[in-house]
């Protein structure tokens, strides 16, 4: 066997971009493990509790980019208690000690304190990019530290975080010498920022390509900034209210016309329909359009806008677009790949905004569609079968029928056949979210056909343990399984315990799993952490030693090399 010199092997590994490929080559032999670990620059940790931070730093001393994810996905919907965990500080501390050359940090669903941000700001002289998604625990003081100390910062991207407002001065903390920003996103901040400081910052950062403002930024300010950044590619507007004859509005239109590179638009807080006309000139170039924060725009105005957007690849809208509006999207946006339709009136009793008809229309027009998130009031098997036939390229299919457990309104049947058609037709399906009335049968289909499925979300579905077992035994690439309010119990949980070591995590809440079942799982599988998360109220009333028959309200199971974590709050029991 011929051995390549290490430099050659390393060069070959450079072509491996996926983490999975690099993980696999590192298991070939010790030499390759060594070469791989010393040359790995981008490290992805899908579950912050699966491995100790120090171990990651020790293995990959050359790490430049680190991504870490914390809380389980259902934390987005308030199902995980606030102080469950997912702290960023240990990771930042370990990186400061072990990988001071760190340049990029991406955190998702983690608790990031101001202290962590301050440490981050001071510890990495080459730090370039900070991306925080769905995080919490920090204030604008932490942002001030980043702005102050991170010389050469290129990217500050805050997506959907909960940030406490401690004043507007943080933005002014970017020194006058800072000209390196390429991407700035503070759309999720609720408070005001110093508009003057922002405008000056934007003006001097000549490489700025992505700018996403928050609601507090006025149209006047936006117009001024756009005039200085004609090469902007992504824009998130601030508040979009302006009298449409006003001078500011005219300047805005003028500025938009100059932005020939603009491809992505979002924001539009408080937008009045008339003001949308200002962007008609950009629409033909747009590939990404996010109007999902603009409930004031009703169907007709949306349609007028979308008729101009024939290059659109990604569209996020509210369901006030109606089925009719989706039909227009279907005929206009032939390049559409991703569609998200969010509900605008969840608790109201208004007439159904979007139904299966809208989805069918989309599928017949947009054959390139591969990613869908669709909130609707009803769905039929026939529609899903049609969609499956029209769009066999789905990689992400998430359907949420707002009324839990609702059957097909035409036939009163469960939606097993519809979803079955989807998994049979879409061979590349990686992510699936189910809703509506579903029996064990749908899981039989999923287990049998969804060979590439990696993430499955189940709510109010199934009849018996068999459903869950079909999935566990069938989907060989399954990584994340999250289940709520479904009748799966201990028998299902314990049927295939080895499966969980091949997965990142399993979440079950309001199911039939008992404490005894969880204990049994933990006993059989020492390399899993089995967390039993008690509701606060419940733990007050609970007896000292709840019986094993006691049903577990929330359970989170994940594979780990790190053993039981030591930062769990008292309402989390790790078995």
């Amino acid at each position, binding site marked *: 066997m011929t051995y390549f010199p290490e430099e050659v092997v390393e060069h070959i590994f450079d072509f491996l971009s996926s983490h999975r490929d690099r993980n696999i080559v590192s298991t070939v032999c010790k030499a390759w493990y060594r070469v791989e670990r010393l040359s790995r620059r981008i490290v992805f940790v899908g579950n912050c509790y699966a491995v100790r931070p120090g171990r990651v730093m020790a293995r990959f001393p050359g790490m430049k980019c680190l991504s870490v994810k914390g809380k389980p996905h259902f934390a987005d919907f308030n199902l995980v208690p606030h102080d469950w965990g997912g702290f960023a500080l240990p990771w930042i501390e370990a990186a400061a000690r072990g990988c001071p050359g760190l340049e990029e940090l991406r955190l998702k669903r983690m608790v990031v304190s101001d202290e962590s941000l301050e440490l981050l700001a001071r510890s990495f002289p080459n730090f370039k990019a900070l991306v925080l998604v769905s995080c919490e625990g920090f204030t604008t003081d932490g942002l001030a530290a980043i702005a102050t100390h991170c010389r050469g910062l290129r990217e500050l991207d805050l997506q959907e975080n909960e940030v406490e407002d401690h004043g507007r001065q943080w933005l002014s903390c970017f020194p006058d010498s800072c000209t390196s920003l390429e991407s700035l996103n503070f759309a999720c901040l609720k408070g005001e920022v110093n508009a003057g400081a922002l405008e000056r910052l934007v003006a001097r950062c000549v490489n700025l390509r992505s700018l996403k403002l928050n609601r507090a930024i006025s149209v006047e300010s936006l117009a001024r900034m756009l005039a200085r950044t004609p090469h902007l590619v992504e824009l998130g507007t601030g508040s979009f209210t302006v009298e449409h004859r006003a001078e500011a509005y005219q300047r805005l239109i003028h500025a938009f016309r100059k932005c020939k590179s603009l491809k992505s638009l979002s924001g539009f807080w408080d937008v009045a329909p008339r003001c949308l006309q200002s962007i008609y000139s950009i629409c033909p170039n747009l590939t990404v359009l996010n109007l999902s924060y603009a409930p004031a725009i009703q169907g007709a105005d949306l349609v007028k806008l979308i008729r101009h957007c024939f290059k659109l690849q990604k569209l996020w809208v509210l369901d006030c677009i109606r089925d009719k509006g989706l039909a227009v999207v279907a005929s206009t946006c032939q390049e559409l790949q991703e569609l998200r339709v969010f509900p605008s009136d969840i608790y109201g009793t208004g007439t159904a905004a979007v139904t299966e008809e809208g989805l069918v229309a989309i599928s017949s027009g947009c054959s390139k569609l591969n990613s869908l998130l669709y909130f609707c009031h009803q769905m039929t098997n026939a529609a899903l079968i049609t969609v499956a036939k029209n769009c066999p390229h789905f990689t992400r299919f998430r359907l949420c029928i707002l*009324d*839990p457990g609702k059957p097909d309104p035409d036939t009163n049947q469960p939606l097993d056949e519809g979803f079955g058609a989807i998994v049979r037709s879409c061979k590349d399906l990686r992510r699936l979210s189910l809703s509506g009335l579903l029996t064990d049968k749908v899981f039989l289909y999923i287990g049998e056909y969804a060979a590439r499925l990696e993430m499955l979300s189940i709510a109010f579905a199934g009849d018996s343990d068999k459903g869950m077992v079909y999935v566990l035994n069938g989907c060989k690439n399954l990584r994340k399984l999250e289940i709520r309010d479904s009748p799966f119990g201990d028998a299902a949980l314990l049927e295939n315990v080895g499966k969980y070591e091949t997965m990142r995590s399993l979440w079950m809440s309001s199911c039939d799993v008992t404490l005894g079942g969880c204990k049994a799982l933990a006993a059989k599988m020492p390399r899993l952490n089995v967390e039993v998360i008690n509701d606060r109220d419940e733990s007050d009333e609970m007896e000292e030693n709840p019986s094993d028959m006691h049903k577990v309200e929330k359970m989170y199971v994940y594979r780990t090399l790190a053993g039981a974590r030591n930062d769990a709050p008292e309402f989390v029991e790790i078995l």
Partner: protein
Amino acid sequence: MEEDLENRGGACPQLLDLIPNESDWMMAPEASGGGRGVGGLDDSEDKKLELKLGLPGVGGGEEEAAAVLCLDFFSKASKTTTTTTCTGARRRLFESAESKSEGPQQEQQAGFLQLQSRAESGNEWPHKAVWAGGKADLQQSHAAPGGAAGPNTSSQTRAAPAPVVGWPPIRSFRKNLSSSSVKPSVGLENDNAEMKQKFDNNKKGLLVKINMDGIPIGRKVDLKAYDNYEKLSLAVKELFLGLLAAQRDTPENENEAAKQAFVGLLDGSGEYTLVYEDNEGDKMFVGDVPWDMFVSTVKRLRVLKSSDLAALRLGAVSRKRTATES
């Protein structure tokens, strides 16, 4: 064992009486003629209320699928009720019933009540039952769940689905977007606030103590759930109205008099005045500073009798409320 349940089952008819239209509830609202195996429920009245114990998956040998009809709601007022009428059949397991059960046979069995939902043939699917989330407390069935129990009675209009925790699966900030939405999401955020009791004021879910003169037991209020003083004032009234009325013990007009007490909390004109203690230890009138500043400096609240105000020598801040002098 059966008797035990039937004793407790004594509570059940009361629960069922709350359901306005039982037969509608049994059938899916859009059903134009069933064909869904609800026949079993019509067989006899006893069967409607039959509670059975059984292990999961034990289907064979049971004669009839039993339908357990129950409404669940959290015992604490601050939590949202999670009763959802739904056309799907879902089992619900009652922990408190289980923990209170004494029958010896229960130890042998799984010890929980269970809806034996069993398709009798491949085409039928399980009996319908009210899907209820959250803990059951059959004893505390006195509170009517309000509109939540109302099923869809016609296929044209859709009754609002009652809020279920974490459903629909969208982020909280999206729930607040639409101006026309009712905002039960505030309730859900209060939910989280209750769970964060250990946190100090600087974290999310700003819980501060509030005491009222003459009421021995204080309350806690989550200031992050409100965005202006009017809403806070209303919340204070809701918190203490019942306690005050009970205190006063005047059966005839207790509620009116008690409600009157909460008028003018913010401007000094009422029987009581809302004051707070800030982070510098000063006592201040609520309403003087902008809301955001108030939220970031408040440490605790008090509802004082206005007649006592002069005696207390409140902080030197002069009353800034001008326009309300009407």
